[in-house]
C-alpha cells in the first residue's frame, strides 16, 4: 500500500472510522433483512422486503470519495448505494427509514434501497446500470453554469463501463469540460459474470484515453490510493480542468444481493483475507497511530449511531396505502 504523505494521522483515522461506520450499517441491515424471512427465504417478506445489495468490502471507495466532497457537491450512486451515501453525508436515519419503507424515509417509502434521494446533499441513485451517469453530468453542468467550483461524482460498477450511457457520458463531459469525476467500482463480478467474460480491456482506466481525459486504476482496494486519486480528480474538476475517470479494484465481500448463494464464485475462499477493514486496521496499527482500544471505540461509536438509525426506522409510521398515488406529480395524483 502506498502511503500518501499528504494524509495526516487524523485523516487516516477518519478514513478507517468511515469504513467502520459503513460496515456497521451494512451488518445491521443484513441482520434486519434476514431476521424475518424464514422459514426458507421469501424475498418479499419481513420489515425490509425486496432486493438488498450490500456494499461490504467496498467501503474504501466510499471513504476515499467522501473525504473530498462537501455537502454542496453531488453524488450519483448505483443499485448498491449505502456506502457512498453514508460517506457523502446522507441522513442515516432517513436512509434507514426508507430501507424499512417508512413515511419518514428519504422517499416516504416510495423509493426503497435502490432509489435513495437526499437533495440536502445532492445525492441520488439509480437502479439501472450506468444510467446514473447522465444525470450527474447535468448536476455538474448546473454547477459550472452557476460559476461555482462544486463537482459531481458519478459512481458505477465495472459492468457499467460496457454500457452506452457510460461512453456517451464520458464523451460529453470531456467535450464540455464538466466538473465530473467518474468512479468505477470493479468488484470483479457483474452478478455472476466475471469481469474477464465481460470486459475487453484489463483496466477500464485505459478507456479514458478514448475521451482525452485522465484515467487511473487503483489496485488492491487501497483506501489511501483511492483517496489520492479522487483528490487529484476533484482538484482538477474544481479548477475547471474537466472530468476524470478512476477505476478501483475493490471487493464484493458478500453476494450480489442477499439470498445469492454465489455458487458461481470460485474466489470465495480467499475473500475474507482481502477484507479491507482488518487490512487497514493493521496498517494503521503498524504505523503506530491506532491501538485496539481506539479501534474498539470506533466500532462502538458506529454501532450507537447505526442502531439509533435502525430504531428510528422501526419506530416510524408506515405510509398510508390511501396515499399511494401521491407524488406522481408536484400537485398530487394524476387524473
Amino acid at each position, binding site marked *: 500500500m502506498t502511503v500518501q504523505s499528504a494524509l495526516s494521522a487524523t485523516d487516516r483515522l477518519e478514513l478507517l472510522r468511515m469504513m467502520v461506520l459503513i460496515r456497521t450499517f451494512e451488518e445491521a441491515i443484513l441482520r434486519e433483512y434476514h431476521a424475518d424471512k424464514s422459514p426458507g427465504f421469501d424475498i418479499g417478506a419481513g420489515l425490509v422486503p425486496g432486493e438488498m445489495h450490500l456494499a461490504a468490502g467496498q467501503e474504501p471507495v466510499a471513504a476515499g470519495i467522501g473525504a473530498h466532497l462537501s455537502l454542496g457537491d453531488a453524488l450519483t450512486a448505483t443499485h448498491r448505494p449505502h456506502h457512498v451515501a453514508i460517506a457523502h453525508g446522507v441522513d442515516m436515519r432517513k436512509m434507514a427509514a426508507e430501507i424499512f419503507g417508512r413515511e419518514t424515509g428519504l422517499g*416516504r417509502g416510495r423509493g426503497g434501497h435502490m432509489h435513495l*434521494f437526499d437533495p440536502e446533499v445532492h445525492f441520488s441513485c439509480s437502479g439501472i446500470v450506468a444510467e446514473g451517469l447522465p444525470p450527474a453530468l447535468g448536476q455538474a453542468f448546473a454547477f459550472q453554469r452557476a460559476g461555482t467550483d462544486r463537482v459531481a461524482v458519478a459512481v458505477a460498477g465495472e459492468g457499467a463501463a460496457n454500457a452506452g450511457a457510460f461512453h456517451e*457520458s464520458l464523451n460529453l463531459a470531456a467535450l464540455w469540460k464538466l466538473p465530473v469525476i467518474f468512479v468505477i467500482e470493479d468488484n470483479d463480478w457483474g452478478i455472476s459474470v466475471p469481469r474477464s467474460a465481460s470486459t475487453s480491456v484489463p483496466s477500464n482506466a485505459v478507456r479514458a484515453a478514448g475521451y482525452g481525459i485522465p484515467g487511473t486504476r487503483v489496485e488492491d482496494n487501497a483506501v489511501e490510493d483511492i483517496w489520492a486519486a479522487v483528490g487529484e480528480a476533484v482538484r482538477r474538476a474544481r479548477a475547471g480542468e474537466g472530468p476524470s475517470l478512476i477505476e478501483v479494484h475493490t471487493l464484493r465481500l458478500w453476494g450480489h444481493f442477499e439470498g445469492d448463494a454465489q455458487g458461481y464464485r470460485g474466489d470465495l475462499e480467499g475473500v475474507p483475507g482481502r477484507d479491507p477493514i482488518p487490512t487497514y486496521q493493521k496498517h494503521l496499527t503498524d504505523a503506530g497511530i491506532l491501538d485496539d482500544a481506539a479501534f474498539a471505540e470506533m466500532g462502538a461509536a458506529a454501532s450507537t449511531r447505526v442502531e439509533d438509525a435502525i430504531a428510528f426506522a422501526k419506530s416510524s409510521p408506515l405510509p398510508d396505502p390511501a396515499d399511494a398515488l*401521491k407524488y406522481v406529480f408536484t400537485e398530487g395524483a394524476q387524473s
Partner: protein
Amino acid sequence: MSTAPTTRTELPSEPEAGRRKLSTAKAMVEAISQQMHTDEQVFVMGEDVGSYGGIFSSTTGLLDEFGPERVIDTPISETAFIGLGIGAAVEGMRPVIELMFVDFFGVCMDQIYNHMAKIHYESGGNVRVPMVLMSATGGGYSDGAQHSQCLWGTFAHLPGMKVVVPSNPYDAKGLMTAAIRSDDPVIYLFHKGIMGLGWMKKNQRSIGAVPTDAYEVPIGKARVAREGSDVSIVTLSLSVHHSLDVAEKLAAEGIDVEVIDLRTVVPLDREAIVASVSKTGRLIVVDEDYQSFGLSGEVIATAAEAMPGGLKHVSRVAVPDVPIPYARDLEYAVLPTPARIEAAVRKAVAR
C-alpha cells in the same frame, strides 16, 4: 430561480387570440424565447437546435438571440444529454431538451421513463424535475417506419410525465409556456404537419392568430374546437385539422359534428370527453398513433365507464397496428385521412 424583470406583460390563461398570425413553429419559438428572457435558468439543448434552428424550426433564431451558452448543440448522444437535462433540472435549472424525432426514444428511454418520470415519486416529492422534452412526431411525407410515428400513447402509458400535444399556433405557444413553467416533466410533442413549414404540405390551420404577450394554455384542459350535436370526434394534433375539415364539409349536408381537441394527453381531460359524448351519444376517436393499447382505447374506456349503455356509436380511426409504410399510397392507406374520418362519421350517424 431567476427573478429578472421582463418588459413583457402577462396575459391571463387563454386570452383572446388577437389578429397577429404566426406559424406553429414560430409560436413555439416565441414561447421559449419569452421564458428565456423571464428566467435565466431556462436553456435549450439538443441536436441541431443551434445554427440550424431545429430540423423542424422549433428553435429558429434562438441561438442569435441568446448565444451558444443557452442554446446548445449536442453530440448524437440522446441518453447523455437528456440525462444531463434531468440533472440540471434537479439542481434548479429549467431545461428545454429536444429529441429530434420522437421515434428516437428507443435509444434514450431509460433516462425518460426510469429517471425523468420517476424521480419525483421515488423521492417522496422531495426532488422536482422541471424539464421539457420536446419532439417531432407524425407522418404523411414518406419518411418511413422509423421517422413517422406519433407515440404519445407510449409516453402517456408510463406514469410521471405530462404529455401535451398542440394542434395549432395558439395552443403551441400557450402549452409551451405552461410546460416550461411547470414543476413537472412535460413531454411536448409537435406534429411536423402542423408546424407551418415551407417545405412540407400543410393545412391552413398551421398558421393562426397568436397573442404577442406570454400566456398559458392550461395543461390538462381540452378544447371544443367545433361545437356539434350529432357525433363527437375526440382527437388531437394534425388529426384536429382533418376532423375540422370533414366537419365543415358535412355541415352542408346537415351532419353536425363536434370536435374535441384534447391538447393534453396526460392528464387527460376526461370531463371534456364525457361532457361531449353525453351530449351527442356518438363517439369517434381519431388518433394518428397506433390503434391498439393506446389513446383511442383509453378515450373509449373513459366514455364507457362514465356512461355504460349510454353510447349509440363507438369507433376509431387510427393507424392499424403496422409500421408506417414508405410508399405514399401505402402510408396514406394507414393514416387517419379526411376520407377515413368522413366515412366513420357517415357510418356513425347512419340511421
